[in-house]
């Protein structure tokens, strides 16, 4: 029966096409698994090698020529101070720029140029920012190889991230909110500071945290500006016993940061230092994971709770 045979052929054809669906679904899961397994292997490898090394002394000791006594005190203090400087510059600048582009910018070529720049800067390799900082901040402006130079470099590096996050957060605010505020006689700035910025703050925060998580792990630009890999002293304390109680001497101090400390230990041949590198890497991964996780959680909450 020709008809039945034809039907069988069609069924076979459909079945073979459906088989491709299954094959691809399996390939997709497999590809995803490669990513997941790599991450698990990386995390487990560091945890197994590094966790036994993590004790109180590891966090409070200066780096040392003897692996057993070396610690990450200068590294984490340096990282904290650099992050502080970065946030101080990147957050106001990024939010202001995002606010301008979304709420104020007229449609003209100047705005176009700014937008193209923000997009392109996000794709510039981080080491190029290091070269910019070396030529400009370290030598031209004379900031030296200091926490200030490093903080400014990383601030420029994460600026596009903060700007893009700010713009996305602002864009999701319905137009009616603005119109309502204007209708009550508010000026543009009053609308921005009383409505736009507060309502987009969670979205901005997500972007800032993701940017900071990226900055804390950046190694190349900081090495390029000439951060030292072996620092056995702390920067001057930002808090003083005598008035005016705060000091900004630490801004010009030489420093090291966590990823550079880890790089230094990784490039040494002795196995004992590699254990230190694993421990420092574990701390670093935990920090970035915690920050990224927090950002993902805030965004998740945001999507759940805010319905315009």
């Amino acid at each position: 029966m020709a008809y039945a045979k034809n039907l069988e052929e069609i069924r076979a054809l459909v079945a073979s096409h459906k088989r491709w669906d299954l094959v691809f679904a399996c390939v997709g899961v497999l590809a995803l698994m490669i990513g997941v397994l790599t991450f698990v292997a990386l995390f487990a490898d560091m945890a197994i090698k590094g966790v036994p090394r993590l004790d109180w002394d590891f966090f409070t000791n200066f780096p040392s020529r003897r692996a057993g006594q070396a610690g990450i005190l200068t590294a984490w203090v340096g990282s904290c101070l650099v992050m502080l400087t970065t946030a101080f510059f990147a957050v106001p600048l990024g939010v202001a720029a995002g606010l301008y582009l979304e709420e104020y910018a007229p449609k003209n070529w100047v705005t176009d140029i700014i937008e193209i720049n923000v997009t392109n800067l996000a794709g510039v390799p981080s080491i190029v920012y290091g070269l910019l900082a070396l030529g400009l901040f370290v030598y031209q402006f004379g900031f030296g190889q200091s926490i200030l130079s490093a903080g400014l470099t990383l601030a420029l590096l994460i600026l596009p991230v903060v700007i893009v996050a700010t713009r996305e957060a602002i864009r999701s605010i319905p137009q009616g909110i603005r119109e309502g505020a204007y209708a009550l006689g508010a000026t543009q700035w009053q609308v921005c500071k009383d409505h736009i910025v507060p309502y987009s703050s969670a979205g901005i925060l997500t972007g800032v945290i993701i940017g900071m998580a990226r900055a804390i792990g950046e190694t190349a630009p900081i090495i390029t500006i000439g951060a030292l890999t072996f620092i056995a002293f702390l920067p001057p304390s930002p808090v003083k016993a005598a008035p005016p109680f705060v000091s900004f001497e630490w801004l010009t101090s030489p420093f090291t940061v966590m990823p550079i400390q880890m790089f230094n230990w990784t490039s040494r041949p002795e196995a004992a230092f590699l254990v230190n590198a694993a421990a420092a890497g574990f701390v670093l991964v935990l920090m970035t994971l915690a920050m990224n996780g927090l950002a993902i959680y805030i965004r998740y909450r945001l999507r759940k709770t805010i319905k315009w």
Partner: protein
Amino acid sequence: MAAVPGLASNTMPPLDAGARLKQRRARVLRERAIEGVLFLAALVSVFTTIGIVYVLVKESVLFFTHVSLWDFLTDTQWTPLFDDAHFGIMVLLSGTITSSLMALSIAIPLGTIIAIYLSEFAPFSVREVAKPFLELLGGVPTIVYGYFALLFVTPILQWFYPALPGFNILSAGIVMGIMIIPYVSSISEDAMRAVPMALREGSYAMGATRFQTATRVVVPAAFSGIASAYILGISRAVGETMILAVAAGMQPSLTFNPLEPAATITAYIVQVALGDLPHGSIGYQTIFAAGLTLMLFTLLFNVAGHFLRKRYREAY
């Protein structure tokens, strides 16, 4: 403030016309000033670009007064810090190209497959878990990936191929590829999800399977977005530094063999920056010439990407 209804305006004494005009003028002035400040903040990105170009070009011009452009492009040796100095950028470029190809040959297929899977095949729950996880994978510091490549992946590869040297492009390239997967997959997936549902429904209505719909309808429709994802992946690979500095060794050699150690442009910059080179020396200038080459390379890809996107842009 008179403009804000509420307690403040009720308790304020009524103003005569002149005072109100003055107040309004002050308010307009303040609004203008604030707009100006915000505009300056937005201009920082323009100044950053200008700064990058200025620094790279300025030092590179000094460099090219010592070394001719012809030597720079054709010399087959890179020994800028030796007495017998050679400045053949080809040597560093070969390392950059080999490692990038290695990384992209992993990141592009896997990233695309993951994007198609998450966008078209995966159930909602899988996607909700997998997306943040991939994001975390992209957030791991590159120095940690470098450590992983040197001390975990290389020993495994040596187990399969014992002659592999401790520093090699292969393991650095593989790890770099895995690092880039999230960048490729997340942007590609966003592009595919932006394809209107009606296109898929039309395809299903014609009797196409999921796989046929994904590869023949969704991917072509989203191609301009997928191309941007690839371009971003390429930029990441070309500009990646620490994985290569740690795991690929820092010996400049003109090779396209991934089983050998090599230096890339980025690794060279790190190597020079680690040693304390005096400001203004020729060695100091080489890193800016190398950086300029890197910049031109990424610029080239971005321009190519721009035209690719334009060519394949689909409007709905």
